């Protein structure tokens, strides 16, 4: 019916067979949902370091801010959340590459970062965390005494 183009996906061909909305179709093809239907949602993390500290970007599309939880204990930073399926239970799934469910990911922060100085921002399905460098770990110039 609606299938991806230019991709060698075995289900494309199946879907292509579909020429009308035969009422028997739903039963006949309901097994065709591709694999990741039961996969666990595991967001991708991207870390980037600069002079100010560490920036962590977590891709959480479809996760609302109230379903996200960022915490820090000691020097362990934890990002947890849940991606809830908005799908209609009665809907017939033709393709399911998106995973849902709960996730937790922890990260041990290096000691030169200040775990008390963490900022979090959520925008367009991306959670951005910034951990500042500890004051003592910031680069500074050392005066050279001349004899």
């Amino acid at each position, binding site marked *: 019916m609606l*299938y991806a*183009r230019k991709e060698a996906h075995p289900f494309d061909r199946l879907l292509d067979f579909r020429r009308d909305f035969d009422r028997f179709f739903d039963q006949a093809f309901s097994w065709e949902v591709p694999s990741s239907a039961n996969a666990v949602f595991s967001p991708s993390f991207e870390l*980037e370091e600069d002079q100010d500290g560490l920036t962590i970007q977590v891709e959480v599309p479809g996760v609302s801010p109230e379903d996200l939880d960022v915490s820090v204990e000691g020097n362990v930073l934890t990002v947890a959340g849940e991606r809830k399926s908005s799908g209609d239970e009665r*809907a017939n799934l033709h*393709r399911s*590459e*998106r995973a849902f469910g709960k996730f937790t990911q922890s990260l041990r922060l290096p000691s030169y970062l200040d775990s008390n100085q963490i900022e979090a921002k959520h*925008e367009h399905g991306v959670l951005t965390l910034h951990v500042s460098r500890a004051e003592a770990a910031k680069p500074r110039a050392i005066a050279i005494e001349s004899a």
Partner: protein
Amino acid sequence: MTSTEVSTTRNQPANVPTRSPRVEVSETDEAIWLSADMPGVSRDDVSVELDDGVLTIVGDVAASGSRPARRFRRQFTISDQALFDLDTVEAKMAHGVLEVRLPKMAKPQARQIKISAA
């Protein structure tokens, strides 16, 4: 937001790294729904285009910090366009997920035909 928006020129060079977004396609009695994960894409940076039975979704993410600009793009073929009411396709964007609704044409109601006596 209703749109069969056709965005012609986009403010991105053609050579930005492009990813195919993960999608979910589901169907109800009334419509086919397409959801695509486009983390980092705002409502203003997404386009949904329908051209001769080919649905193209594009989402752009601007460069930030040392991360270069990047793009999500994927195309779908609608094998039987007559089954859909393509003038009323709707799209919305929330938390980096694009959702497109392709409504089906209403089925004609069965009618009782009266048989007149000869």
